[in-house]
């Protein structure tokens, strides 16, 4: 790389890293992201802490539920059987329930197996968790009753239904890894790559547009070659992205060392044990390689798009197809993480536009054959060079055009004749 391209890289890098935007994005984005992923779960957990069992009356016409329900539900619930001599009408029951101080009245019909015969009258909204607990309690009580009918007494129904804690450990040539933990890693790779391509692609478009609108481009062109400007811009902006990722990785590393209260318990509930997570250096190296190559590929495309544009409004039109491609890639990755050995995964790994998002995720959760990997990298390198060539052809002509947007025919002419 020439000295001039290096000077431009440095300028682009420093201008962005020194901007307030960089701090906001670097430290704000992880917060937002963690929030989006874990907020729903955190809300449930917080809600659960202040939420008690209900004070429940049970009117049991079948005589099979009320006896065991209290034990099945546990101490948080207060269950008191209600006795009625005669079967009452629905209206009368509601009237009577209103007069009590109970949170809810559970009515079990003479035959609980009959559809709709078990009903709960509730004074307040019942939370999802309370509903689940109650359903489970009724089921356990009914199972106990049915077992008793078969002569089996004294059985712990909770234990009866307990499954096993299945942990999936993949034994690969590089060692063992837990499926759940590495699924999170794969997701993280995919999300970070997806976001960075989108954000930094748009950043490049804006940088090119600003350079055109501030007219500084002509001064630059009297000193350097278009390709030097182009490379300087791509590398400079990309280095900002890498800096950001490095900061995130450092934060992530510190958190996994010292732990984030709440987060690990949330992950544990999902069957992920962070302490089991050891990221192999090889995996990180591959992820970095794919990120850099993929970034350069998209940077070239965004750069060419930005250069052939007149203003910010036009930008959206031309940038949208690129954004759609990246979003499609991300959707593919989500499917591929679910089934990493599908033919979609293999084909997607060979398409340069998608492979930077797909392959690191696949590498995290499963083994990718060496031949496939070699093919994928070679095609990505070819794609990256093609994009740089295309961008160069368009950039050096388009960068001096001001005002109107180039039409497709013009762009094709620039590519063919330069």
């Amino acid at each position, binding site marked *: 790389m020439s*000295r*001039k391209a290096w*000077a*431009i890289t440095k*300028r682009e890098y420093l*201008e962005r890293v020194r*901007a307030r935007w960089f701090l906001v994005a670097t430290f704000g984005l992880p917060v937002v992201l963690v929030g989006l992923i874990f907020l729903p779960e955190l809300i449930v957990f917080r809600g659960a802490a202040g939420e008690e069992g209900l004070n429940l009356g049970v009117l049991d016409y079948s005589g099979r539920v009320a006896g065991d329900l209290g034990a099945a539900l546990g101490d948080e619930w207060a269950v008191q059987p209600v006795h009625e001599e005669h079967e009452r009408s629905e209206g009368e029951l509601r009237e009577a329930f209103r007069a009590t101080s109970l949170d809810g009245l559970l009515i079990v019909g003479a035959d609980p197996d009959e559809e709709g015969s078990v009903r709960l009258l509730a004074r307040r909204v019942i939370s999802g968790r309370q509903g689940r607990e109650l359903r489970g309690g009724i089921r356990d009580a009914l199972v106990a009753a049915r077992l008793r009918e078969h002569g089996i007494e004294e059985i712990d129904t909770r234990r009866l239904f307990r499954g096993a804690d299945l942990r999936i450990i993949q034994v690969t040539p590089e060692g063992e890894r837990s499926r759940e933990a590495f699924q999170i890693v794969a997701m993280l790779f995919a999300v970070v790559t997806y976001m960075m391509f989108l954000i930094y692609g748009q950043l490049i478009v804006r940088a090119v547009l600003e350079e055109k609108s*501030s*007219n*500084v*481009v*002509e*001064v*630059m*062109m*009297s*000193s*350097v070659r278009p390709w030097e400007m182009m490379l300087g811009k791509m590398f400079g902006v990309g280095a900002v992205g890498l800096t950001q990722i490095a900061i995130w990785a450092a934060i992530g590393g510190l958190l996994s060392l010292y732990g984030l209260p709440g987060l690990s318990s949330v992950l544990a509930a999902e069957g992920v044990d962070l302490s089991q997570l050891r990221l192999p250096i090889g995996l990180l190296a591959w992820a970095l390689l794919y990120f850099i190559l993929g970034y350069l590929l998209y940077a070239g495309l965004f750069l060419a798009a930005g250069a052939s544009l007149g203003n910010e409004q036009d930008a959206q039109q031309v940038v949208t197809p690129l954004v759609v491609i990246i979003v499609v890639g991300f959707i593919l990755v989500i499917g591929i993480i679910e089934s990493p050995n599908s033919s979609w995964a293999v084909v997607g790994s060979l398409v340069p536009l998608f492979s930077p998002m797909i392959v690191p995720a696949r590498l995290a959760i499963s083994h990718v054959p060496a031949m496939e990997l070699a093919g994928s990298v070679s095609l990505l390198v070819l794609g990256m060079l093609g994009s740089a060539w295309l961008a160069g052809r368009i950039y050096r002509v388009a960068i*001096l055009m*001001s005002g109107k947007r180039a039409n497709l025919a013009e762009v094709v002419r620039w590519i063919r004749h330069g």
Partner: protein
Amino acid sequence: MIDRAIHLQGIAKSFGAQTAVEDLDLRVPSGSIYGLLGPNGAGKTTTLRIVLDIIGPDRGRVEVLGSQVDDAVRSRVGYLPEERGLYPRMRVLDHLIFLGTLKGMHRGEARAAAHHWLERLGLAERSTDRVDTLSKGMQQKVQFLSTVVHDPDLLILDEPFGGLDPLNVDLLKEIVLERQRQGSTVLFSTHRIEDAERLCDRVCMIAGARKVLDGPLGEIKASAGRREILLGLEGDASFLRELSCVRRLSDHGNYFEIRLADGANPQEILEAALSENVRVRHFELAEPSLREIFLERAGARAAEPGPEAGP
């Protein structure tokens, strides 16, 4: 030292169906101040961009400072484009250093030169301020500085006086003359012929993508082969129209530009004025103005600036 700083041979460039420059030859001698004149849209900016290798010509040869334009040549040229522009968020000093390094200077060298020039133009206190916090006039100054900070052998200025306040115009002229004294060559374009007339040793005029005039200013004027009389009068000036020695009369009210018929004596005009009952306030024998010559050569339509032109 090469005697020709710039040598263009048979340059042609079109954009689509529009011809910007057609078959242009240009020789700019080393150490001269050379004016590239012509109305807006005549192809001046395109010509300068071809000289700088910002765009390539469709045909023709370009030689700058004795060779084809490469990195070494580019480092010896300073360029002020018509559309000024700097990175708005950079600090003034950093910006000058940055542009200096793009001209092949080392950082230390560039820093020293930038300090020197900022000091000289009274911008030293603003050197750590962001460019976009400067007034427009100061930004213009910084932009000039960026064209000379690397001590170039060739200065190329595109419409350098457009949109400037008079103080900055004088400053720029001072720098231009100083560069010339130090042996640099200056090529500038303008649609304001008066600027060129005051500053240039040589001019080249283009109109409608073609060259219509080229050479040293003195020779051009001499070869026009005629003289003008500038006459300021109070009173009835209608007698001027009767005189046989007047070939052309431009009437500006109390002020007249008179071109004499071949072989006529300027004294005749003065004598006629004295014999009439008018007061002569001003009588001057002048060479024809560049504008007059240009109007004659290029035709009035091409020479008059378009609506967006003007000082």
